[in-house]
C-alpha cells in the first residue's frame, strides 16, 4: 500500500464566539512524512482538535490548504480515518457492528465487513466482546472499539483526537503500548493529538508543541528514542525523562 504524508500549508481558522471572531489557528505550516507518528501537544483551547478536524476534512480552513499525496483535501476521504475523543460509538449496535460501521458506510457486503471487523477486534484485544453493547464496556474498551473501527477501513493515515483523555492511568499505559505495537505492525501515518507530554514522547517520532489563542506551532521536537519501544525500558531511560522535561520547559514558558 502506498504510504501518504500530510502537509499543512498556512492553515488559519477562526470561529465566532459571542458575535466576535476568535482566531483559533494562525498560519499553521507543518509537514508529516509518510509512515511517521506525529503528535500535536498543547494546552486546552490551542486548536489541536480543530487542526485534526481540518485534516480529517470535517472542517474547512479559512485560509491555507491541506495536501495529502499531492491532492488537496476538500472533505473526508478513504485515505484517512479518525479516532474520536468521546469514542463516538453507536450505542444501539454491538461491538461487531460498530467496528464494521465504517465499512458498512462504504458499501462493503455484510459477510466481508464482519470478517474484517473480527480481525481488528482481535488486534485490539477485544475478542469475545463482539456481541457486547458499548454501555457494557469500560471507557478503555470502548476506545479500543473506536480504534478497531478506524483501522478496519484500512486508511493510510490515522487521525487520533486525544483518544486516551478520558481513560484511567493504568488503562492508558496498557493502551499506549498496544497502540505502539499496532503502529509498528500496521505502518500507518499517525497524527496524534494530546495534552500529555509523557504520552507524546512515548509514542511519537516528532512532536509539534502548540500555543493557545491563536494556535501556533512554537516548537518542533524530534524524539530520539529507539524503536520498537516497550514501556518498561523507555519510561525509565534518561532520554525519556529529559525529553519530557524539555517539553515541560517549553509549555511552561507559554503560560
Amino acid at each position: 500500500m502506498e504510504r501518504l504524508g500530510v502537509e499543512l500549508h498556512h492553515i488559519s481558522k477562526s470561529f465566532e464566539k459571542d458575535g466576535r471572531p476568535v482566531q483559533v489557528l494562525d498560519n499553521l505550516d507543518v509537514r508529516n512524512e509518510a509512515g511517521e507518528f506525529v503528535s500535536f501537544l498543547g494546552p486546552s483551547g490551542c486548536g489541536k482538535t480543530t487542526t485534526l478536524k481540518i485534516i480529517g476534512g470535517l472542517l474547512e480552513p479559512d485560509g491555507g490548504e491541506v495536501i495529502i499525496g499531492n491532492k488537496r483535501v476538500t472533505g473526508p476521504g478513504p485515505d484517512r480515518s479518525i479516532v474520536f475523543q468521546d469514542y463516538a460509538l453507536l450505542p444501539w449496535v454491538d461491538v461487531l457492528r460498530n467496528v464494521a460501521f465504517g465499512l458498512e458506510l462504504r458499501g462493503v457486503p455484510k459477510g466481508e465487513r464482519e470478517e474484517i471487523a473480527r480481525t481488528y477486534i482481535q488486534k485490539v484485544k477485544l475478542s469475545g466482546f463482539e456481541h457486547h453493547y458499548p454501555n457494557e464496556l469500560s471507557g478503555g474498551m470502548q476506545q479500543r472499539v473506536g480504534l478497531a473501527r478506524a483501522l478496519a477501513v484500512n486508511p493510510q493515515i490515522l487521525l487520533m483526537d486525544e483518544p486516551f483523555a478520558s481513560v484511567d492511568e493504568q488503562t492508558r499505559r496498557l493502551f499506549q503500548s498496544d497502540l505502539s505495537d499496532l503502529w509498528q505492525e500496521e505502518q500507518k501515518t499517525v497524527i496524534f493529538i494530546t495534552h500529555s507530554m509523557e504520552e507524546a514522547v512515548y509514542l511519537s517520532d516528532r512532536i509539534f508543541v502548540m500555543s493557545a489563542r491563536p494556535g501556533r506551532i512554537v516548537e518542533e521536537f524530534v524524539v530520539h528514542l529507539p524503536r520498537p519501544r516497550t514501556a518498561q525500558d523507555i519510561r525509565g531511560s534518561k532520554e525519556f525523562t529529559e525529553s519530557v522535561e524539555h517539553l515541560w520547559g517549553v509549555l511552561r514558558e507559554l503560560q
Partner: protein
Amino acid sequence: MIGSKVRSRSRRQFSFVPLIPGMIAWELIGRLHVSFFIPPLSEVVLVWFEILHAGKLWDALVISFETFVVGFSLALVLGLILGVMMGRYRGVEHFFDLYINTFMSAPVSALVPVLMVLFGLGIGTIVATVFMFSFFVIVVDTTTGIKSINPSLIQMARSFGGSEFQILPKVILPGALPEILTGVRLGAIRGIKGMVIGQLLIALTGLGERLVYYGNSFLIPQLYAIILTVIVFSILLIELFNFLERSLIHWKR
C-alpha cells in the same frame, strides 16, 4: 451493567396490583348506595357484557378504532417527516416553530366546531380531531430527539464518507428513537382523547355517540361501561408502545 438492564426492564412491566385497591373501593362505595351516579364495579362489568352482546358496543368500537387508526397514522407519518425536517434544518425549524407551539398550547377541543364546518358531520371531522390532538406532540418530540443526538456520531459517520441519506437511517433516526417513541406514545394517548371528544361533540358515531346517549338517558352503568372501554383501549395501546420501546431501545440504560 447487565444486571441494571434487567432491572430497568422488569420495572417497566405493566402491573395490575395498584389497581386492586381502587377496584375494591369502587365496588364498596357502589354497594353502599352513596349515589345513584356511582354504581358498583361488578354491575358495570355485567352491563358491559350485556351491551357488547347486543352488538351496539362492538359497532361503536369498530368505527372508533377505524377513525383513530386513520387519524393517528396520518399524524404519525406527517409528524415524523416534519419533525425530522425541523430537527435537521434550522430554516424549517424557524419557520414552523411558532405554529407548532401555538397549536401545542391551543385548546384543540374548541376547534372541533371549525373542523365540523370543514369536514362535515361524519368520520372526516373525527379523523381530523384525532390528527389535531396527536400531530403536534409527535413533531415536537421528534425534533427534540433529532437535535439531541451526539454531534460527534454524525461527524464520525461523515468522516467515514457517510452521505446524508446513509446518516439519516443509520445514525439520526436510531439515535432519536427514544424521544420519537415518547412522542408517538403521547400522541396516541392524546389521539384517543381527540377521538372521544370529537365523537362527543358530533354525537353521531362511535363511542362518543354511546356516551351521549347513555348519559342523556341516565343509564349510568352503561355510561361507565363505555368509559371503561376507552380506558382499557388506552391502556392496551400504551402497553403496546411500552413493549415497542423495550424491544427497540434495549441498548438504553
